[in-house]
C-alpha cells in the first residue's frame, strides 16, 4: 500500500480526533477562559461520567447488540448499595464499592443471558430492564440520599495531590486498558469477529454466546463505575442520576467509530467521541448558550454522527478503490514497458 493511502486511511479511522482537534483550536481562540489548565482538567472530569457510558455502549455495539439499560444501572447499582449499607451499623466502604460493581455486572449478566441464549431482542429486552430499574430507583429513593462514606465517594470527589480529579485519571486509564484489550488480545479480537459475523464466528469455533454475555457484563460494570463517579461527584445518590444519558452514549460511540452493524469501533476512538461531547458541552456553556440550546446542539451532533457512520464506509471504499486502480495501472504500464523494451 502506498504511503498516501495509508495516511488517508489512518485519518479516516481517527476522524473523531481530527474533529476534536479542530473544535479545540477554534475554541482556544473564540471562547474566553477555554484554554486554561483548569478548564481542560474540568472537561476531562466532566467527560468521565459520559465516557464510561460511551465505552459501555460501544462495546455492546461492537458485538452487534445495543443496551438501553446502562443509564438506569448507573442509578440502580449505587442506589441499592446505599439502601443496604445505610441499614448497617458500621458499613465497610470497600464492601459497598464491590457491591455496586457486582450489581452492575449482575444486571449485565441477566441482559446478556436473555439476549445471547434466549435470543431476546436487545432493544426490547434492555428497554424493559431500564424501565424496571428506573421505576424501582424512583420508588425506593426519595429524591436523593446524601452523605456518602468518604471512600465510596473517592472516585467521584477525590483529587490526586489535591488538584487532579481521580475520576479523570480513572477515565483515561480505563480507556487505555480497553484499547489494549481490544487491539491486542484474543479476548478482544473475539468481540470484533463475533460482531462482524456472528454465524461465521460460531462455525469457526468461537463461543459467541459467551462473548455477547461478556459484552453486556462489561457494559454493566462500566455503568456501575459511572454510578460511583456520579454519586461521588454530588456526594449523594439521587433517583434521577443518568436520566436520558443513554442516547448521548450512542452518539459518542458512533462518533468514535462504532456502528449498529457490529464489528466496528475502537475504544480509543470512543474516548475521542466522549471528549468531543464533553468539550461541546463545556464550550457552549462558557459562551453562555442556553441549556436547552446546548441540548439541541448535541442532537445535531447525533445527526452528524449518523451521517459520519454512512460517509466513512463510503469514503473508505473509495480510497481503497483508488489505490487498487493505481496498482492495476502501474502493473499494466510495467508490462507494456517491458514489452516495448
Amino acid at each position, binding site marked *: 500500500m502506498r504511503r498516501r493511502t495509508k495516511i488517508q486511511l489512518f485519518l479516516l479511522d481517527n476522524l473523531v480526533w481530527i474533529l476534536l482537534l479542530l473544535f479545540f483550536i477554534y475554541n482556544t481562540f473564540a471562547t474566553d477562559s477555554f484554554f486554561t489548565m483548569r478548564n481542560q482538567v474540568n472537561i476531562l472530569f466532566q467527560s468521565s461520567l459520559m465516557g464510561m457510558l460511551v465505552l459501555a455502549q460501544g462495546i455492546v455495539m461492537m458485538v452487534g447488540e445495543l443496551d438501553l439499560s446502562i443509564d438506569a444501572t448507573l442509578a440502580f447499582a449505587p442506589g441499592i448499595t446505599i439502601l443496604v449499607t445505610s441499614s448497617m451499623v458500621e458499613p465497610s466502604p470497600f464492601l459497598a464499592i464491590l457491591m455496586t460493581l457486582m450489581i452492575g455486572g449482575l444486571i449485565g449478566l441477566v441482559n446478556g443471558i436473555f439476549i445471547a441464549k434466549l435470543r431476546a431482542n436487545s432493544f426490547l429486552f434492555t428497554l424493559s430492564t431500564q424501565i424496571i430499574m428506573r421505576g424501582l430507583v424512583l420508588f425506593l429513593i426519595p429524591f436523593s440520599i446524601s452523605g456518602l462514606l468518604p471512600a465510596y465517594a473517592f472516585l467521584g470527589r477525590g483529587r490526586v495531590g489535591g488538584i487532579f480529579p481521580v475520576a479523570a485519571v480513572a477515565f483515561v486509564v480505563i480507556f487505555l486498558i480497553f484499547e489494549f484489550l481490544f487491539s491486542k488480545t*484474543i479476548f478482544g479480537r473475539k468481540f470484533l*469477529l463475533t460482531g462482524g*459475523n456472528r454465524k461465521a464466528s460460531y*462455525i*469457526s469455533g*468461537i*463461543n459467541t454466546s459467551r462473548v455477547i454475555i461478556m459484552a453486556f457484563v462489561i457494559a454493566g460494570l462500566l455503568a456501575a463505575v459511572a454510578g460511583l463517579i456520579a454519586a461521588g461527584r454530588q456526594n449523594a445518590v439521587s433517583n434521577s442520576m443518568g436520566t436520558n444519558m443513554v442516547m448521548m452514549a450512542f452518539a459518542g460511540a458512533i462518533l468514535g467509530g462504532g456502528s449498529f452493524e457490529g464489528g466496528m469501533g475502537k475504544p480509543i476512538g470512543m474516548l475521542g467521541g466522549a471528549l468531543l461531547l464533553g468539550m461541546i458541552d463545556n464550550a457552549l456553556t462558557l459562551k453562555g448558550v442556553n441549556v436547552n440550546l446546548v441540548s439541541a446542539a448535541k442532537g445535531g451532533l447525533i445527526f452528524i454522527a449518523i451521517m459520519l457512520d454512512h460517509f466513512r464506509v463510503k469514503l473508505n471504499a473509495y480510497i481503497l478503490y483508488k489505490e487498487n486502480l493505481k496498482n492495476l495501472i502501474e502493473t499494466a504500464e510495467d508490462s507494456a514497458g517491458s514489452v516495448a523494451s
Partner: protein
Amino acid sequence: MVEPQEVTRGQRVLELHHITKLYSGTVALDNVELAVERGEVHGIIGKNGAGKSTLVGIISGIIPPSRGEIIINGKPVHSLTPAVAKKHSISIITQEPQVIEESTVTENLFMPKYLGSRDFINWRFLDQKAKEILDRVGFPVETYLKIRDLSISEKQLLLVIKACYVEEADIIIMDEVSASLNQKDQRILYRIIDERIKAGKTVIFISHHTKELLEVCDRVSVIRDGHSVGCYDTAALDMKSLASLIVGETHYDELVLEDKSREIGEETIFELRDFTAYGRFEDINLKLRKGEIVGIAGLRGSGRTELFKAIAGIDTHEKGELYLHGVEKSYNSPEKASADGVMYLAEERENEGLVNIASIKKNLTINILSKVSRREVIYDRLENPKADELIKTMNIKAFSREQEINQLSGGNKQKVLVGKILAKAPRVCLLDEATRGVDIEAKESILNTINEEMRKTSCILISSPGVDDLIKICDRIMVLYKGRIIDEFARPEFNEEKIYRVMQGELLKSGEVK
C-alpha cells in the same frame, strides 16, 4: 451425440440472443441463445454452476444482462425489470416459496391485487373465488388456513396455482419447483401444466432431474459452463443421451491432478457409523484414512450440507456414532469440534464463512489465534508473517493483508475461506462446496491447495457443485441421494456421466430407497 434441431411449431413468445452476463472476474453466461414457442413446455437444464440460475434471473427481469437482446412476442425489450416482465405477463415461481406466512391462503392467492376491490375488499367474494380455483385443480386445502400451517410442498403448489390461475400469466417460469413437492402434489403440478398448455400458455421448466424433464417437457435447452449447448426435442432423447449433453465430453487425463503423489495412510482417522438425523440423512457409514480425500456427490437437497453440519456439531444428529482415532466423540457445538480438529468450511460464504468487514489477516487467523499469541496477547510479529504466508500459499490477490474482505472478488474470498481452514491444519476437514462460485483460475488454485497442502495433515470430506471437481482430486466418491449413500466409486473407475446419473437416483437398484 444428438444433433440440435430446428423446430418450428408455434410463434416464438420469448427469444434471447447473445445473452452475456459478466460478474467481477467470471463470465456467468456467454452468448446464450434461447427460443421459447407458444404452447410448449420448455425445459432448461445444466449442471450446478452452468448458469441456469443466472439465465432464469435474466428472463424474469431480476438480473440485468451485460449484453444481448431480449425479444418478447416479437418485440425487443430494452430493459427487462420485474415490473416490465409482469406487464408482459411473465410469472416466475422460485425455488424457495415466496409467501406471506401470516396471511391466509385466500389473501396470498390474491395478493397484491385483490379482485373486485375498489374501496373495500369483498372477502366473501374472494373466498368463493379461491375455493373455485382450488376445486378446479383438485388441491384440497382450506382457504382460511394461515400459510405458516401449510407444508412447504403445499406452499409451493399454491404459488403455482396463483401464477397459473390468478395472474393467468402467458409465460410461467418454474424454477426447480418440483424439488420441494411431494409425489401427490407433483401429479397435480403436471396436471396443471397440461391444462395450461392446452389453454395456449407457455411454461419454462427448470429442473435438475433428467427423468422428470424428459416426461414433462416438449423441448429442452441445455447449457454447459455458461454456453448454450443446443435445443433438443425430448422425443429424440433418452436419459443417457441427455446426461451426456449436460456433462459434455470431458478429457479426464488432462484434469486429473498428479496421480502418483497420492500417499494414503493405513490408519483410519475418522469414522461414522449409522450416522442419522431423520429427514435429513440416514445410516451414513464412512471411514477416512490419513491423507485421503473423499467426495460426497449429491444434488441440492440430498443432505450433504446437513451431514457436514451435523458432524461439525453445528446441527444435531439423532443416532449413530462418530469416531476420531478410534475414540467415540459427540459434538454439540463447533467450539468442541474445532478443538478436536474437526473443521467445517461453510457452503454459504457470505453468511456463514467470512467476517466481511474484518481484514484478510483477521479472517485467516480466526482459527489459530492461540498460535499467534503468547499468554492471550496477540503479537504482530507472530500474526503478520503467518497471514503473509497463507496469502502466498493460497495465492490471494490483494495489496495488503489489512484489506477488508468486502473488497475482494468472489474467488479471492473463497481462497481466504479455504486458507483459514488450511492454517489450522485440522485432522478432519469438511469442505462443503469448496469451489462454489469461483472462476476457473481460482478453482484450479483451490483444488491444488487441497490436493497438495491440506492432505498432508488432514483427511478430507469434500462436496462440490460439479462432479468434475470431485473427479479431479478425490480418492473415492460417495453418492448421496435423498439422505442415503447409495453408491461408491474408487479412483480409477470414475466416470462423470455415470456418477451424474447415480446422483439423479436413476441407476437405483429397486427397493433401495423409496
